[in-house]
């Protein structure tokens, strides 16, 4: 075992010392967690509206009304607004021009132009704008109605103020029973991105790192190891352990860094590390298989990155498994990523215990055993093959 540990130690040192790994191991995963959290994390809003036109009471009133409806409001000149709408960077453009502002100030009628975006997602913002604009002067409508009933303006205004305090506003209570929002309830801005990127990078780094195994075979490192008093089993075990150490190191680093930088809640840390450890075993096995069946480092990096990305896409590393169709969710579970995703979801979101994640760990362990045995067998065979 000492020989195997020594080989594994060398593999980890080689990995850490390789400057090329610095960006992809230490910086890139965190960048992606940050980008995903910034773009998709956190609470959503009721759409984006860009207002254009000179500063006026009407423009301010429209903006305040929209903001009170949780719509994200920005201002731009007319051409910039049209470009934003055309490019989908805002859902709706709203033109409050000088003529409308003056007419509104003078108590007359005014027309506001809405420029809707072409994406269907802009429908919600369009409706928000429609409600905001048509209900903006409700106070004036109330006043007019009272004046029409013969009440003088000032008296009517005072009466409306008094009545507003007496009337309880009707409320709309929205209850979310859809599994998606319940599933993600209470999840931090960066939590989902962190666990999916952990799975993606742990696996991808391992697969792409299989090129070092090919390099070791090419340079005769494996053959020289066997010249020492080291058995083939020990050498293969050392390589497997080396792959596992690299994968676990990558995942552990992502866990630690995202916890420190983005306050990602990993739930029970012991259980999360256990999931990572078992998942890293699968990654190690897969790396050994790839590093043994391919004889070209460039092709191994290409296949590793490609496979790493594709498996992550299928297994929930790029989009939450919860938005997959039922069929695709079943297909996703041919990947270890999906089982890792489920286990992290159990621990991170639902405070799951060891018993709760045993099924996922069991499947991952079985996948790891199969991949490691196949990898060891292929590596043994590859040692006899000339490069």
């Amino acid at each position, binding site marked *: 075992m000492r020989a195997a540990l020594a080989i594994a130690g060398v593999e980890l040192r080689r990995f850490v010392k390789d400057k090329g790994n610095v960006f992809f191991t230490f910086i890139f995963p965190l960048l992606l967690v940050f980008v995903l959290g910034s773009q998709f994390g956190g609470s959503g809003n009721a759409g984006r509206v860009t207002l254009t036109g000179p500063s006026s009471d009407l423009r301010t009133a429209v903006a305040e009304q929209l903001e009170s409806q949780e719509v994200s409001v920005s201002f731009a000149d007319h051409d910039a607004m049209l470009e934003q709408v055309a490019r989908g960077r805002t859902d709706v453009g709203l033109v409050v021009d000088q003529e409308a502002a003056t007419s509104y100030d003078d108590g007359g009628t005014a027309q506001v132009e809405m420029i809707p975006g072409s994406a269907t997602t802009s429908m919600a913002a369009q409706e928000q704008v429609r409600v905001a604009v048509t209900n903006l*002067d409700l106070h004036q409508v109330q006043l007019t109605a009272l004046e029409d009933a013969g009440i003088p303006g000032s008296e009517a205004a005072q009466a409306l103020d008094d009545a507003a305090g007496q009337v309880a506003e009707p*409320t709309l209570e929205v209850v979310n029973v859809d599994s998606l929002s319940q599933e993600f309830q209470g999840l931090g801005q960066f939590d989902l991105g962190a666990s999916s990127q952990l799975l993606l990078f742990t696996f991808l780094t391992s697969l792409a790192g299989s090129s070092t195994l090919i390099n070791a075979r090419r340079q005769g490192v494996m053959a020289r190891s066997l010249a020492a008093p080291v058995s083939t089993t020990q050498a293969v075990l050392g390589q497997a352990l080396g792959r596992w150490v690299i994968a676990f190191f990558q995942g552990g680093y992502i866990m630690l860094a995202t916890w420190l930088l983005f306050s990602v809640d990993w739930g029970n840390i012991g259980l999360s590390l256990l999931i990572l450890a078992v998942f890293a075993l699968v990654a190690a096995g897969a790396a050994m298989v790839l590093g043994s069946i391919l004889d070209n480092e460039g092709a191994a990096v290409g296949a590793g990155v490609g496979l790493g990305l594709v498996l992550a896409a299928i297994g929930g590393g790029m989009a939450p498994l919860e938005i997959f169709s039922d069929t695709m969710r079943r297909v996703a579970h041919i990947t270890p990523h999906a089982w890792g995703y489920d286990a992290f979801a159990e621990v991170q979101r639902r405070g799951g215990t060891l018993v709760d994640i045993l099924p996922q760990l069991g499947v991952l362990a079985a996948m790891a055993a199969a991949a490691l045995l196949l990898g060891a067998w292929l590596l043994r065979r590859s040692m006899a093959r000339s490069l």
Partner: protein
Amino acid sequence: MRNLFTLLRTDLVQRLRDKSVIIFAVIVPLALMGAMNLVMGDAMDGDLETATVAVSAPADDQLAQTLVGVLPEIGLDVEITETDADDARARAEAGDAKLGLVIPEGFSSALMAGQPAEITAIRGDGAGIESTVVLSVIQGFLDRAAASAVATTAGANLGLAPAQLGGLAQQVATGESALTLATGEASNEQLDPKGALVAGQAGLFLMFTVSFGVLGLLAEREFGTLARLRSMPMNPQLVVVSKVLSSFVLGVVATAILLTVGGRLFDVDFGSPLPIGVLIVSAVIATTSLTFIVIKLAKTSEQASIIQTILAMVLGIAGGAFFPMSGGGVLGTILDLNPVAAMIRGLGITSGGGGLADILTPVLIMLGFAAVAMLIARVVPDRGAMA
């Protein structure tokens, strides 16, 4: 010229024999597009569905019935199923209705008497944008109903007769707002989600494809053939030019293949071939220009591969290769100056029917990017393959 042609032909043949070119330029991006389309196909399908609403509303309640009557007229397919409260809730929970709506007994009388009145909306599985639109309409209705109740209370406080109060309530509930909304139009420069996926992946992997020229140059040096080439009776710069040209040719061919095959697979129409061709060539010029910098910096093919991969991933993801990136102000401008983003933007314009004149901005961005990269390449001291 003949020398250059010979060098270029040799380079292209070598690159085509290299498995990693085919893997990175065509197979991985197509596999990734396929995987992402499979798992996110439903989420990327942007069509609005019918908003199925299960409503429990007292039959003899005027306001409740008015609200139910308003829903089918909101410019969205709305399918109303009138039922009891428990069933409305159950349908939403079971996913049979996108929205369950429970309007309590005595809703109108409570509201008009200024007493608390609450409508409960239950968002079911797959509630989507449709239910958000319906909820927005209901909120607008309630705002107006509340204004009507306030006016009626004010009228009552002022001693108006019951008959007048009825007219007052009606006038506020249905009164025309002084503000009207006109709907304008902006051009459409957006790709649908599937189009954005194909264009984004083509842009990302273009960055990898053009890197093979530099890698070829460094391989020449590592194999010792570069020195021999430089001893030939020809301008030594032709060696670099041939590598850059091979990158250019590979980039144009691979991107054309990805956009054509991707477009066919995912049923995306990118528009007229001529402007698309101009966009591809501009994007390839922009990304290939980066290789001049990499040639100056990288001493080994491993270093070149790492620098190019960092550039590809950073520019690709920031450009919207996996998901659209949005940002305002300076951030938005920086995101716009990215060649991958400019190519996706250009393809958005062509897919909306834009021609050569319309894609001027993205083309200028890409050519400007190339000019700046070439300038930087001239200033950066040569530490790389040709040093």
